[in-house]
């Protein structure tokens, strides 16, 4: 599997828009879209958990080329908290209940658009990483917080 690319982010953006999927880039992928200079291996999206959005998401993923079985499609449509996809043109994590964020609606209100990509606000990305409290998140948080201050100053 090759690294995730801009063109693939565009595929997500365009297919999700065509199917009306409500989602936000989150995690370090989200921070990178906001301008944070760092490396990551994963693209993570925070998806609104509703029946209609789940169905739209399945349709969009199949259009992009994810080979979902009917059982997998049903799990995604139902909105299991965390789904890891490595059965498509790129790896993608679907997160329906990220740590540290109260609700999709709250995060959606605070979202930032970058070239048409809907992205969680940097404060939500930091809150999520802080709540997760993994070793790799603890290591990246000081620099991420410094970026937050810089990003807010730039406006």
């Amino acid at each position, binding site marked *: 599997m090759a690294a995730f690319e801009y063109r693939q982010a565009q595929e997500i953006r365009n297919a999700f828009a065509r199917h009306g999927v409500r989602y936000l880039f989150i995690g370090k992928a989200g921070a990178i879209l906001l301008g944070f200079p760092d*490396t990551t*291996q994963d693209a993570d999206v925070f998806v609104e958990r509703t029946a209609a959005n789940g169905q739209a998401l399945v349709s969009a993923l199949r259009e992009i080329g994810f080979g979902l079985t009917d059982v997998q499609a049903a799990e995604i449509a139902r909105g299991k908290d965390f789904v*890891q996809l490595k059965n498509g043109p790129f790896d993608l994590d679907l997160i329906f209940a990220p740590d540290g964020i109260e609700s999709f609606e709250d995060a959606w209100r605070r979202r930032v658009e970058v070239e048409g990509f809907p992205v969680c606000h940097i404060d939500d990305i930091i809150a999520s990483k*802080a709540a997760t409290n993994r070793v*790799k998140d603890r290591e990246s948080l000081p620099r991420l917080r*410094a970026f937050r201050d*810089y990003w807010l100053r730039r406006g």
Partner: protein
Amino acid sequence: MDDTSRPRPGDRADRAASDEWLADFEAAARRPLETRMRYAFIHTYKPGLDDAAYRSFDTTADYRAWCEAHLPDWLGYGRV
């Protein structure tokens, strides 16, 4: 928020780190998004994590617990 993890003004080493980060942020801001993404996304094999085409978890807590039970410590998915 753990503010003790921020570089503290007045400490020479931390100020140097902070200046270096600021230079990184400004350099990144000058690059187009497509270039930033090319530099940012990498792919290396992650044992355990990359060994299944599909995984799902009923709860985020289940996923965190699975990572701690099945992934090597050096990947950093364990909780502090």
